[in-house]
């Protein structure tokens, strides 16, 4: 092992510890790789032999072997891929709408203190209402089920990107603003070359977290109000007691959520290159 074996159980934690899964894999030392394999394989084995071993509670959860068989069957059926397509489309539309509305509104509010003081309290009273509670209102208001589900997904991603944009644009160091002013910036220079670039990191964080929430809302909306999509398929499988199929849907949604968030993070690193060189 490369690291000097510490005689104590605990070495001071590395400040640059990677948190996200992708970064964790790259930065993990051999010790961490070994532990990861042990824990994941251990979990799967425990799950597989839960029923014969009589592990309390896990007995009526189908073992991985059944889940894999179910997934093979499911993956070959086009219902599954249809559901994928629909869910992906809904998340994409809802998420993009949230960015197109949230980012400019956030920047505008951050630039104009009066507008912020007027509109932000409204945000403060609407935001704590869990988006799931909006599902009935969405169903009533929007003409089609599809629009209702997309609206809920939109709501999930909208608040977080709006708040992050306002926070990011509002907390720019006064020295940068003053320096730009002295150097003779016109208002449009100030916005495009100072305020926007400085806010990009916060916007990206808002988007990455927003994407995760978009998938959460999609599952809720599809389960409760939808008649198609992965969330609905998951609920339908549960109702016909096809639990292995349920688990496959769970894992599919998990992978979809993970990949889309990672894509946003990578785009973020590309959009804010100066941060990477820390």
């Amino acid at each position, binding site marked *: 092992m490369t690291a000097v074996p510490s005689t104590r159980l605990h070495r001071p934690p590395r400040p640059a510890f990677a948190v996200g899964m992708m970064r964790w894999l790259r930065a993990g030392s051999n010790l961490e790789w070994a532990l990861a394999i042990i824990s994941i394989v251990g979990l799967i084995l425990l799950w597989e032999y839960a029923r014969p071993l009589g592990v309390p509670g896990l007995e009526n959860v189908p073992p991985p072997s059944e889940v894999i068989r179910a997934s093979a069957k499911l993956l070959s059926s086009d219902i599954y891929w249809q559901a994928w397509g629909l869910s992906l489309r809904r998340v994409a539309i809802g998420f993009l709408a949230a960015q197109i509305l949230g980012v400019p509104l956030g920047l505008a509010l951050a630039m104009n203190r009066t507008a912020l003081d007027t509109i932000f309290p409204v945000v403060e009273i609407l935001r704590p209402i869990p988006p799931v509670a909006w599902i009935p209102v969405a169903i009533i208001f929007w003409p089609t089920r599809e629009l209702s589900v997309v609206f809920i997904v939109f709501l999930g991603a909208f608040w977080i990107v709006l708040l992050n944009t306002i926070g990011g644009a509002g907390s720019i*160091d006064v*020295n940068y603003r*003053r320096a730009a002013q*002295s*150097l003779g910036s016109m208002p449009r220079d100030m916005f495009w070359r100072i305020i926007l*670039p*400085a806010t990009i990191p916060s916007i990206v964080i808002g988007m990455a977290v927003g994407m995760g929430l978009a998938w959460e809302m999609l599952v809720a909306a599809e389960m409760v109000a939808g008649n198609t999509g992965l969330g609905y398929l998951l609920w339908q499988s549960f109702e016909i007691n096809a639990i292995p199929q349920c688990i496959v849907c769970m894992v599919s949604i998990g992978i979809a959520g993970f990949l889309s968030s990672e894509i946003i993070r990578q785009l973020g690193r590309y959009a*804010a290159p*100066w941060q990477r060189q*820390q």
Partner: protein
Amino acid sequence: MSGSSIWKGATAEVVVDSLYKSYGDEFNSKLVIENCSLTAQKGRFTVLIGPSGCGKTTLVNLIAGYERPTRGRISVDGVEVRAPSSDRLAVFQESALFPWMSVFDNVMYGPSVQRKLSAVQAKEESTALLARVGLLEFRDKYPNQLSGGMQRRAELARALINKPDVLLMDEPFRGLDAMTRQLMQEYLTHLFETSAQTILFVTSEIDEAILLADTLIVLSRAPASTKAVFAVDFSRPRGIEIFKSARYSDLKAEILDTLFEEAAGAFSSASRAYAETVEGYALQRSRTSS
């Protein structure tokens, strides 16, 4: 840094005329500058020194145009200062280089937004100035990839390309280690001697003040006003050899006496941290009265 001065800094005279500045509303307002008058002559290196917390930074902000005086007037070559402009550019203690722009784009920012020079001309001047400050091979690096000394020089280049009438510097070398600081002081002196740019420099370090200044203005304790003006008549070009001369220790003793009077006066009302400043001046005074 050899070579004739590629650019001829425009120079101007800064006149501060019975200036007042207070913060807060009418119930509890805190007076920071009280009846302060001083002049930074054209093409001269003027240094402001005063006890910490006496309002030096506020004075720089007022001259730069970031804040408006409560009463009194600041004018550059007779024209009253009303708003920030590229005629009066400032370098502060913390770097204000735009972290999201490369060094080159930072330097180019001024000319590109003022739209006075053509793009080609601006590029040429930026490249020449970066070469002059020895940062040419760092042109595409981001500010956070540079060392403290290099960030200071990049910020100087970003200011000087706009040929400001006055260059304002508020304790720009404070965070640097002793070695880099000394090299930067020598470097700034050389830069001034080859351009005769009007510079107004603020510091709390006495040795730095004496090495750099043509005129040294001692500010009183808060609320700041001009306490004393000293002519620092070492010949130019200057180097650290002046620290060995007798003139240096006499001048330093005189300045310390003025500063100690001011700081001690404030001792009763000031906070515990301020007590350190007073003790510091006392200790430094005992250094020179050997």
